[in-house]
């Protein structure tokens, strides 16, 4: 183990530095507004619910991107026979969770529901949402100021948004 470490240390360091630089450049484009969002936590996030795409909704709600994490356990059916009632739940082993949101990528408005989790409340929510068609469902968990997500594709045989 030690030998391989020394042998590969130089290129590894270079790669790590490269990743760091890319990450910094990426962050530069996003305004640091998370403090403002946290303060307005109890207000209904109207703009986020009006956002059409998943990325816009996440930006309006949290102002930063989420990273996929296996600590977020999203429970959704493989196939939903009725898109009007799709049971979705999420739970996590992450601590210090402040908010949980559900998004359906291909709905007319991506954000379905967002929950505020005060201290002392378990980071686990179950609810039922509507899906217009087969789509990716994403759960986002805000823990310690960072965003973690899990995504699952749910097949819908009858849509729930339209006649």
């Amino acid at each position, binding site marked *: 183990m030690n030998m391989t470490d020394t042998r590969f240390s130089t290129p590894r360091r270079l790669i790590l530095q490269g990743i760091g630089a890319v990450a910094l450049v990426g962050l530069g484009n996003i305004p640091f507004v998370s403090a403002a969002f946290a303060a307005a936590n109890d207000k209904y996030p109207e703009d986020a619910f009006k956002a059409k795409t998943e990325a816009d909704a996440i930006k309006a709600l949290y102002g930063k991107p989420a990273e996929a994490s296996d600590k977020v356990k999203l429970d959704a059916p493989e196939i939903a026979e009725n898109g009007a009632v799709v049971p979705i739940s999420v739970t996590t082993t992450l601590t210090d969770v402040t908010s949980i949101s559900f998004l359906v990528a291909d709905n007319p408005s991506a954000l379905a529901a967002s929950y505020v989790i005060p201290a002392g409340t378990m980071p686990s929510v179950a609810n039922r949402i509507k899906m217009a068609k087969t789509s990716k469902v994403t759960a986002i968990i805000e823990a310690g100021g960072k965003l973690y997500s899990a995504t699952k594709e749910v097949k819908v045989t009858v849509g729930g948004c339209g*006649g």
Partner: protein
Amino acid sequence: MASTIRVRASATGDTTEVQALIQHPMDSGYVKDAKGDLIPAHFIQQVTFECNGKSVFVADWGTAVSKDPYVKFSFKGGNKGDDLKISWVDNKGASDTTTAKIA
């Protein structure tokens, strides 16, 4: 009229599990009625849960939450007999409140 909110809150140890079912059409604004006219959006925007005056859960909902919405969560700190106050308000300004005892 009976309350639109049905709630079951049960305490096991120091954890209280809450299940709430609210009667509401949750019209998305995309569905047409029998005459082909769009049914305007009518949905609950926010539901708040308070235990002994302290907020334990806030739900912000969009039109994509199912009709007669259901939500389940649990929190620490509730005791049997404590009051759990639940209120919702929708996009037309209608609202309802109920208080349940934790069992």
